[in-house]
């Protein structure tokens, strides 16, 4: 029970780093803020998690991991409650920070407790790393389903009972810690963190953040799919991640798993940067590669960073700090790039759409009316990419003109799809570069015979 409880706690917290991705478009429309502002719902959580992971691990060593894990889960639940009740962006971001502090305590404390639950530090490290990887992969799909079926607030509110329930099996251990009072004697100076593994974790996490965040924005904002369709579409990634688990266990060398995972993440992201059509199904091969790579690389690097290092909680704290600092760096670097590319592509779509309209073999009056209706639809959808079909209604009664109007509709839609897809290309390709860059510390560490 303790093992399951700790695994769920780790998965729950690390899923939270990405769970709001599918809700971001809803949140920025609800609060009437920009993409650059709403991104802080993600950034703040990851930044605070990165900053507090190591101090939380030190605290776990000082006052007992079960206490810190249980308190962390309750703080995480309280933060979730405040997030769900937030009525504007600033309180939401503040509550996310509270969630992150609790999350850091829960995750690092869980790592310290895990060996007692599973019997060995090696198995504990693997269980902890796998739970985190699965949580990160499942987060967006779960968040998307909740957003579509209930509301974005429900994402946070369902975490409140979940975190409390997970904390309950820890209570006997907390009581044991209270009576034992032996933790203080075990405190010793932690060794140096494993730099190559943590650097590689930061780079690959930056790439994965881009994969999750950008693919969701592309589907919802660019291709105009609903959150539930996007949630189902991006569930290919966690399915691939879960399916790769047994394969990962057949390869004992973590260096090979880390290298293969980084290559797959980079390849998948490059595929997303070179999409040949604006079709959800066209993203599936890329998602399969990213999902498989995610399982291989995150668990291998985390195990490597923890192997033979004590105390586990503090080194686990370093891996959390590295992962989430990487996520923050990825989001902060790529957000301005893709927002600038959106402006460029908006201009290109504007020119291409105008050209298509001017050159269409249709009466001038129909073209002017159509342009007016397109403008009206755009105004009604408050700047979102419009569904242009209704603007063509009513179609001309003349069969030839009707055919030309339908051809124009297809052309305009194609230009919009091209612009929306191309606006994300550079960001995906840069993220692929992060994935490839992660190979460098892996290879260098190998050359220097560091245990990676």
């Amino acid at each position, binding site marked *: 029970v303790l093992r399951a409880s700790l695994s769920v706690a780790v998965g729950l917290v690390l899923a939270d780093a990405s769970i709001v991705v599918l809700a971001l478009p809803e949140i920025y429309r609800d609060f009437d803020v920009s*993409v650059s502002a709403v991104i802080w719902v993600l950034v703040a959580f990851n930044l605070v998690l990165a900053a507090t992971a190591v101090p939380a691990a030190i605290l776990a060593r000082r006052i007992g991991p079960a206490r810190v894990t249980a308190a962390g889960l309750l703080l995480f639940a309280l933060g979730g409650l405040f997030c769900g009740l937030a009525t504007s962006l600033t309180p939401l971001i503040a509550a996310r920070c509270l969630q992150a502090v609790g999350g850091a305590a829960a995750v690092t404390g869980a790592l310290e407790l895990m060996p007692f639950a599973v019997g060995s530090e090696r198995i504990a490290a693997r269980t902890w790393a796998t739970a985190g990887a699965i949580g990160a992969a499942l987060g967006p799909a779960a968040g998307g389903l909740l957003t579509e079926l209930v509301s974005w607030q429900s994402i946070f509110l369902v975490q409140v009972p979940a975190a409390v329930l997970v904390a309950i099996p820890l209570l006997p251990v907390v009581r044991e810690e209270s009576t034992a009072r032996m933790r203080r004697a075990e405190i010793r100076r932690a060794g140096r963190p494993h730099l190559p593994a943590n650097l590689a974790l930061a780079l690959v996490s930056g790439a994965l953040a881009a994969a999750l965040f950008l693919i969701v924005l592309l589907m919802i*904002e*660019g291709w105009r799919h609903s959150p539930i369709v996007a949630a189902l579409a991006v569930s290919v990634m966690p399915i691939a991640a879960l399916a790769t688990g047994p394969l990962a266990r*057949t*390869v004992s*060398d973590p*260096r*090979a*798993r880390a*290298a*293969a*995972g980084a*290559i*797959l993440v980079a*390849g*998948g992201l*490059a*595929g997303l940067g*070179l*999409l*040949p*059509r604006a079709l959800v199904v066209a993203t599936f*091969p*890329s998602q399969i*590669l990213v999902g498989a*790579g995610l399982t291989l690389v995150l668990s291998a690097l985390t195990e490597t960073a923890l192997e033979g290092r004590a105390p586990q909680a503090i080194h686990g704290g370093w891996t959390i700090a590295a992962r989430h600092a990487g996520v923050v760096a990825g989001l902060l670097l790529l957000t301005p790039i893709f927002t600038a590319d*959106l402006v460029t*592509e*908006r*201009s*290109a*779509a*504007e*020119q*291409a*759409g*105008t*050209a298509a*309209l*001017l*050159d269409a*073999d249709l*009466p*001038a009056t129909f073209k*002017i009316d159509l*342009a*007016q209706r*397109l*403008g009206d639809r*755009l105004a009604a959808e408050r*700047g*979102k*990419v*419009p569904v242009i079909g209704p603007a063509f209604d009513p179609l001309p009664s003349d069969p030839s003109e009707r055919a030309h109007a339908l051809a124009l509709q297809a052309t305009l839609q194609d*230009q919009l799809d091209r*612009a*929306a*897809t*191309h*606006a994300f290309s550079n960001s995906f390709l840069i993220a692929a570069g992060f994935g490839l860059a992660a190979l460098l510390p892996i290879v260098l560490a190998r050359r220097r015979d560091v245990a990676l």
Partner: protein
Amino acid sequence: MRPRTLVLAAIIASATLVAVSVALGGATYEPKPVADPCQPRPWRSPGNLDEVAQQLTLSTLDGAACELHVSRETVVLALGTPEGRSKFANDPRLSEALRAGLLRAVDDAERAGAIPGIVADGLRQAIESLPADQLVAAARNAGGLFDQLSGSLGPLGGLLP
């Protein structure tokens, strides 16, 4: 599975995905670039007055855009907003751009067989001798048309988030 096999499989899978994406046009999947307004554009067979008027307008836009070193679509989008029209009206190159546009329209119409050569010659002489201020006044009088277009073509610019 052997470690080298895993790494090799990852390389092959990634390279295959990238190669297939590029082969299917992923590297060039972007909005269609607009045509160079200085290059001739084929006319559709003019079947009625509406089509002739549209083609003449488009040729005039091409000629003016070529003279201003911008795309035809840039001119149309600029004319779609009051700010754009004001900037366009105050451009010192306006009269020459209009003259170039009208001459281009006559050339294109003659090439397409929409007007006979003798009429085209007469029109060219008239356009070249037209004083600059009258050309600008004629353009400003066309403001009613652009008022109608205002808010119609312009909003196309906001189709992306």
